[in-house]
Structures are given as structure tokens and as C-alpha cells.
């Protein structure tokens, strides 16, 4: 057991901290609105210019070849500095791992640099009105035509879809095949004729959701990622990164628990015993999540696969996030109803148990794959 960082890692931390302290913008409007999104893109481009956008990627795509450890350190520093939400996250954290694993060299060279530079902005097109938890019920279809595919159907809940330029999605390419076998992973520019995007309000009222309609949309064969009919396994190969570590690194919750602590000190006059307990609990759980990921990264680095373990991460961070924000509202007393970072954070925390596979689905995965309880 060694819980210390090497001098090189400490130097990396110091460099990241100094850069963030000098560059983090303050008071950006919400990235889930049109103006706010534009402001966040400026920040993303600044990150890219100084090679902080995708630290773990190879240098030729704009990264620093950072190790998983360094990536964790960067994330800790990023949230510690109070830096803005990453509006590019669904491309960087969800699509990119898939492109690295399944993309052709041409696809990698085409997609990754532009994604890192925030020139191409990717939305996730998995869910449909009739396919949520039961993702394999997807009915949007892509029919084979000469040299490509013709897409018809609808996606929904696409995060920041109204501001994205591209979509990665699952489409039914073989209606005859069994549910999972007939799906293909396709990459679609949203300016293709026949695509209509309609943004709409999430719980906080911001236009962070979108519906995407496909009306005889034609894409070339090169839009296929990972093979025709392989969509399900290609998509599932990277759900671990969505549920676990990469989407929600511990730095985020450590920083939030620290802000909560500061709030409790500031609001000492309304620190009830239960709120005090809540602050302690948030701190304990944020640290537990951090330590859990340190053990997990040790396993990954030493070649032991995480697999269904990522469902544990997802359950833990999402429920910690809600409890943490509920404590904040308690501390705010009557100020809790004022629109602000804590009330917005609270609303957003409530979506944690829904996206990236609902917590009910994750609990079933834990029970069946980690405990070995029988399927129905």
C-alpha cells in the first residue's frame, strides 16, 4: 500500500494547479443555454490550446499521454479550482474511448483532433421515446443504400443536442435479427439534410435536452463505427466509462464536499445537528469514493479489469451527490428556494440516478453479476 504521489506526479499537479489558477474563468452562464454554451466553448478552446483538454490522450491528438493517475490528479485540480462544467464531455468521455477501441485509423484521425479542439461537438443518440432502460428496443432504423445508409426515426434526451454539431447513435440496421444483433453504431453530422433538432427544457428550465428527428438522412459507409450489426457490443464496451470513473471522477465530489464544509462554517448559525451530520457524511462518502477509485485504478494499471464494478461507482456517486445537495439546502434554510448554484446543483443531482443507466438497472447488474443472484 502506497498512498503517496511520485515527484513527477506532484510536478504534474503543480503545473495543472498553476495553469488553472491563472486561467479558470469565473461566473460563466449555464452551459446548457445557447449563450452559456458558446462561453463554455471558448473555455474548451483555451484548454485545448494549452493541452489541458484531453490530458490522457496521445500527444498527436492534442493530449499529454498522461497516465490514469495523472488524469485523476488533473480532475482533482480541475474541480478544486472551481473550473466550468465540460460541455464537450459526452464526446471526450463517451465517444472517444469507443473510437480509440473500435475506430479505423481514418476515423481516429478525422474525429479525435476536432473533438479535442471543440470544433466538432458530439451528442449521444441512444435513447428514444420507446427505448430508455430497454435500450435494445431501439426502433430508429438505417437502411442499406448504395455506398451508405438512409436513416429514419427519432432520438431523445440528447444532452445539449441543440448546440452539438454531430451525433453518435445506435440504429436498427437489420430488423430481422434478434433485438441486440440488429443494431449498428453510426456517426452523423447534424447538418446533414433531413435532420431536425428541437431543444427543450430540463428540470432547471435550461435547454439542455433535445429531440433529434431523422427524415431520410443519408450517411456514407464510413459513418459506421465498429462494424455493421456490432452496435450493441460496441456501445456496451464503453458503458463502463460512462458509469464509472471517467464520467464522474472523485475530484468533483471532493470539491463539492469541501464547498459544503465551507458553507457549514459560513452558516454556523443554522448548523443543526442533522445538517452537521450531513456535512460529515458527505465528506466521508466523497473520500470513500476517492479511495475506491484509487484501488480501482491500481487494478486497471496492473491489468485487472473493472467490468460490472462500474455499476458500484455509479450508484455511489449519484446517491452521494443527492445527499450532499440536500444537506446544502438544509444549511441554506429559507435561502434554499433562491435560484443559485446549490439549488441548481440539487436539481441536477436528481438526474444522476436516471442517466448512464438508471440506478434500478445498476442494482440488478450488481446483484446478478457481482453477487451471482439468479436472473428471473
Amino acid at each position: 500500500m502506497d498512498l503517496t504521489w511520485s515527484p513527477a506526479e506532484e510536478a504534474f499537479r503543480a503545473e495543472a494547479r498553476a495553469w488553472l489558477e491563472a486561467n479558470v474563468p469565473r461566473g460563466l452562464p449555464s452551459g446548457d443555454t445557447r449563450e452559456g454554451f458558446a462561453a463554455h466553448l471558448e473555455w474548451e478552446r483555451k484548454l485545448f490550446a494549452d493541452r489541458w483538454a484531453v490530458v490522457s490522450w496521445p500527444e498527436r491528438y492534442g493530449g499529454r499521454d498522461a497516465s490514469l493517475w495523472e488524469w485523476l490528479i488533473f480532475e482533482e485540480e480541475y474541480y478544486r479550482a472551481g473550473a466550468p462544467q465540460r460541455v464537450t464531455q459526452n464526446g471526450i468521455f463517451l465517444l472517444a474511448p469507443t473510437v480509440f477501441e473500435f475506430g479505423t485509423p481514418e476515423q481516429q484521425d478525422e474525429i479525435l483532433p476536432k473533438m479535442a479542439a471543440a470544433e466538432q461537438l458530439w451528442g449521444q443518440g441512444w435513447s428514444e421515446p420507446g427505448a430508455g432502460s430497454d435500450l435494445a428496443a431501439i426502433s430508429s432504423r438505417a437502411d442499406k443504400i448504395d455506398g451508405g445508409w438512409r436513416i429514419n426515426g427519432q432520438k431523445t434526451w440528447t444532452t445539449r443536442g441543440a448546440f452539438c454539431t454531430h451525433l453518435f447513435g445506435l440504429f436498427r440496421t437489420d430488423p430481422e435479427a434478434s433485438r441486440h444483433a440488429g443494431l449498428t453504431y453510426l456517426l452523423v453530422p447534424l447538418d446533414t439534410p433531413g435532420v431536425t433538432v428541437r431543444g427543450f427544457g430540463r428540470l432547471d428550465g435550461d435547454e439542455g435536452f433535445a429531440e433529434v428527428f431523422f427524415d431520410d438522412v443519408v450517411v456514407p459507409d464510413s459513418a459506421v463505427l465498429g462494424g455493421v450489426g456490432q452496435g450493441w457490443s460496441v456501445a456496451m464496451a464503453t458503458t463502463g466509462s460512462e458509469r464509472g470513473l471517467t464520467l464522474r471522477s472523485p475530484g468533483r465530489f471532493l470539491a463539492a464536499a469541501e464547498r459544503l464544509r465551507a458553507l457549514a462554517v459560513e452558516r454556523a448559525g443554522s448548523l443543526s445537528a442533522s445538517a452537521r451530520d450531513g456535512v460529515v457524511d458527505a465528506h466521508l462518502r466523497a473520500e470513500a469514493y476517492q479511495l475506491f477509485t484509487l484501488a480501482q485504478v491500481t487494478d486497471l494499471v496492473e491489468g485487472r479489469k473493472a467490468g460490472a464494478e462500474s455499476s458500484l461507482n455509479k450508484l455511489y456517486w449519484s446517491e452521494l451527490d443527492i445527499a450532499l445537495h440536500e444537506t446544502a439546502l438544509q444549511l441554506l434554510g429559507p435561502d434554499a428556494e433562491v435560484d443559485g448554484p446549490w439549488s441548481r446543483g440539487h436539481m441536477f443531482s436528481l438526474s444522476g440516478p436516471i442517466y448512464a443507466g438508471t440506478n434500478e438497472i445498476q442494482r440488478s447488474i450488481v446483484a446478478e453479476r457481482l453477487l451471482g443472484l439468479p436472473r428471473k
Partner: protein
Amino acid sequence: MRFAPTPDQLELAGAVRELLTDACPPEVVRTAWGPEGDKARTTLWRQLADLGLLGAMVPEDDGGLGLTEVDLVPLFVEVGRAAVPLPVAETVAVLAPLLAAHGSPELGPLVAGDLVGTAELAGSGILPWAGCSDRALVRSGAELRLVDLTGVDLEPVTTVDGSRAAARIPSVAGASLTADPAETERAWLRGALAAAAQLVGLAHRQLDLAVAHTRERKQFGVPVGSQQAVKHLLANVLLDLRFCVPVVQRAAVSLAAGAPEARAHVAAAKAMTSDMAGRTARSTIQAHGAIGYTVEYDLHLYVKRSWALAASWGNVAHHRAVVADSLGLPPAVDPSALPWEATR
């Protein structure tokens, strides 16, 4: 950075697990509840001594294994998993290293398994394992004293975990071992850490029993474990448990390093595991149905030990308060007062 047990640590824990699977099955824990308890305990203690376990934290020069708190965590997880009905933690983590540090002549017989040593440093007045121990480490103000229990007339206390052999702390002065606050604190933290690690093992055992039972037990023509409500109940137990483990490991790392954070880190570990223990007991009993609510089935042996350990070496409230202090949190106010009354 490498946050995982070493192959050596895993190997040692594996050896202890193997030994305890044979030497301390549920029947032995059950026997310890009854009049035949002493014989079973004596054999088991001897086996632990033969493995060298009793001197685990004693320096090699003094005939021990020279291990640290970090090595001990996986060992105490195993001791918890088997609910060993003896003061293993008290002897190994608390008493033996203290005796070694003070060059006490009692060390040799203790490590050899000729003496059994217990400890109670919370000042609760109840001495666990008194009935099966020869020596007891107790606290008197800032001092730690070693009491020879031989021939002392003990006043037994009936506890929920009937294997605890508890008694009122006898009013025998004993011999002063140390009055050094740092040493006393370290002994206390080692005891709390060992309790936290045992709670992890105890929870594992309860969960294993619940999983095995719900896979077998059929109602409505299907295993009850195929019902989603049961699955989610047990998934929560695993979730709770798995996130306690690294917190316990970190506490050991800090304690072994003599880091100033050790106090808060041990408090985090004991608070979280004690909380988890309550939920685990409740959920695993529920997953069993009525069979979980009986003394004829094994589950209660592990549930009751976990209740006992959750309440000793500082309970949840104590350790949470220690964490709160380490965070610099102001004291709680009376929420019945509105802000304009604050000056009353």
C-alpha cells in the same frame, strides 16, 4: 501510488482464512455461547499462536512477525468473517505491541498462546472476553493499566452476543503500563481499526449467507433471490461494504505511518463500518425471512458480533464527532431557535 494489498499480505490473509475455515466454523462460535465454550476456545487460541498470529505486531527481535497495521487489516477481516470468539484483536493489535514496547515479561507467554489478553479502553465499564482472558488492559484516566485476572471474582454481564464472555471491569488496580497520551491514543486507534476491519469481514459473512440462502430458497416456484426487491436489498449491502474497505485500508496506512491524520482516518473507518454494520444486519435478516430471526440458524452469530463491535471502540456518534472536529465544523445549534432569537 499503489492502493492494493501486496501479494504477501494476501497470502497471509489467505492462510488465516484457511485456518479459520477449519478451526472456527459456525459450530465453534456457537459452542462458545454455551458451557462447553472454554475447551473450544483453548484449542483455537493455540492454533492461532502456532500460526504466529498472536505476535503479528511484535518486532521480529522480540519473537513476533514484525507486521504493521496495514498488514493486519486483511487478517482482521478474516477474524471478523469467522467471528472468532476470542480477544484476537485486543491481544494482537492492542496489548502485545504495548507489552513489547515496555519490555514486559508477560509478552512471551502472551505471544506463545499461554495467556489470553483482552482490553477495554472506552471506559464503558464492561470488559469483553473477561471470562476467557488472563490479563486485561484497562484505562484509568490518562493511564493504561494491566490487570491480572487470575483468581479475580468476576461479575459476568449477559450480552446480546453470548460468545463475548463479558464481565464488569473488576476493581483491581493492576500495574501501570503507560501514561503517555500518544501511546494511549495509538493503542486506542489500533483497537478501533481492528474492530472496523472485523466489521468488514462480519458483513461479508452475513452477505454470503444471504446470497446462498436466497439462491436456494424457492417461493412462487422461483428462487426468492430472483425477485428484484431482494436483489436490490442485497446489492445495497455489497455497495455499502465495498466502499468501507478502502477507508479502513487508508486508516491503517495513516496509522502505520504515524501520520497526524491517523485519528480522523481511523474515525472515518470506524464510523462508516459501524453504520454499515447496522444496515447489513437489518438487510440480511430481512432477506432470509423468519429463518434469519432465529438462534437455530447461523446468521445471528455474525449479526450479534457486528452489533457488539459497532458499539465498542467508539460508536458511530463518537467517531463522526471526531471527523466533524477534524473538519473544523462549528458546534451544532438548536434548530428550534429562529435567526432573530439567536442572541437569546
